[in-house]
Each structure stands twice: as C-alpha cells, then as structure tokens.
C-alpha cells in the first residue's frame, strides 16, 4: 500500500464526519433558532393540502417487497463475484468465460423460478 493510498482514507473519514455532522448540525441549529407556538390546527397531520387518511402509519406491507429484496441480495452477491472476474477476464480465456456463464445461468434459473411462481406479478 502506497502512502498516497493510505492518506486517501483521511478524506473518507473526513467526508464521513462532515456527512454525519451535517445532519445533527442542521437539526440542532433549526431547533435552536425555531419559534414554537403550537396550536391544534398546526399540530394536525398535513398531507399535500388534504386531510390524511385516518389510520396507522404501519400500513399493510406486501410480501412481494420481500421477494424483490431477496432477488436483489442474490444478484448483489453475483455482482461481487463478477468484479474480480472482470479484472482478469483476458488472462482467464475461454474457461473463465464458461465458468462465469454457468454461474449466471444457474442464478437465472432462480429468477425464472420466481417469475414462474408469480412472485414478480403485482396484483
């Protein structure tokens, strides 16, 4: 690891501190400066100028969201394997190409299965 490369993490840490600090600083400053005169009309929920639907904010949540997130996780893992493969793709030759195509084809079966089961339909 070259010194320049290690030093670049100083910028990563600085960016993280600025990013987290910005959230707390803006919330804190607005809390310090704001005027507070609450009354019933002001405290009522506001939704694009109309009365919001009465009810729980934890509305029913379809299991289909979970299936989409699940497929996202699986293909995210695939992406992680593709990065190092792409780096040495030329030196691996035809066998390396075949390895990755088999890998992707097997995962594609999973996607086709979810599709055939109707997990991707949105009724």
């Amino acid at each position, binding site marked *: 690891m070259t010194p320049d490369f290690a030093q670049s993490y100083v910028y990563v840490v600085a960016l993280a501190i600025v990013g987290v600090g910005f959230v707390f600083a803006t919330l804190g400053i607005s809390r310090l400066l704001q005027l507070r005169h609450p009354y019933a009309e002001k405290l009522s929920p506001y939704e694009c100028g109309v009365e919001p639907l009465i009810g729980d904010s934890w509305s029913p949540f379809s299991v289909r969201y*979970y*299936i989409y997130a699940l*497929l996202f996780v699986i293909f995210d893992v695939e992406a992680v394997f593709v990065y190092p493969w792409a780096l040495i793709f030329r030196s691996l030759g035809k066998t390396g190409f075949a390895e990755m195509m088999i890998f992707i084809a097997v995962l594609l079966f999973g996607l086709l299965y979810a599709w055939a089961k109707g997990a991707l339909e949105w009724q």
Partner: protein
Amino acid sequence: MHFSTPIFYLVSALVIIPAVLMVAMRNLIYSAIAMIACFIGVAAVFVTLNAELLAASQLLIYVGAISILILFAIMLTRRRSGAICLFFHRQSWAALPAGAALAVVLGIVLGSARFSAGSAPKNPSTANLASLLFNQYAFPFELASLVLLVAIVGAVLLAMRERRS
C-alpha cells in the same frame, strides 16, 4: 504506510459497541440500525487489514443488501402498534454468563497462541485473489451458485405460502 495500533482500537470500538447495543436494545428497528453500524465497522477493519475489495464487498452485500432484507422482514412482521419487541426468554439469564465465558476462553486461547505470522498485514492484489478464485477454487465458486439457487427457491416458496384458513 501501515495503519497504526490506535486506529485499530478506534475501529474495534466501531465494531464492538454497536454489536453490544444491537443485542441489548428492545426495539428491533434500533437493533437493525446498530447492526448496520457494526457492519460498517467491520468494513473499516477490512481496510486496516489491506483488504479493500472485501471492504467494498462488505458494504455492497451487508450494508447495502442484507440489512435492507432484514428491515423489510421487520416491517412485514409488525403489529398494529409497531415492530414486535420480544426481548428475553426463560433461559436468558444464563445467556450473558455463557457469552462472557466464551469471550474469556476465546480471548485467552487466541491471545496466547503463537502463529508463524508476519508483523504487518500483506497486501495481496485483487488480480491475485481473482486468479485464486477462478482457477483453484472454480468448483466451490460454481457450487456457490447452486447454494444461491436453492436459497431463491426455498425463500420464494416459504414467503409465498398463504395463511392456512
């Protein structure tokens, strides 16, 4: 340049403190957020070990994907009042001493073991890792795709199952 020991202690605190908070907090949503902080800390540990590709993979898979899946699962299994906050059960009083005992034993064994190791982490190149993965470990790599296929099929079957009427 190598990362020095104070940086290691800072990064370890970023891993252990969120992990303890995650187990100790009642609300599942707060636990999930503490878990995400812990995963980011583990990515930082990988950086201090000169494993940049793994640090990026850790962020991509754990922070970007698995924590989203866990948050969706918490949302899907909510009650009217919010997330389910099951806390400790009958045997929980024994869990903390058991975990502490495991920590003490692992600490003594790992702290006193002697390995034929260098004094600082090496920096294997990403190309070196890739050639190991796709030449020597090509068969486990293909098996991993089968495991992922089984996971898709199993999870879709379980999640799509309708309520017994």
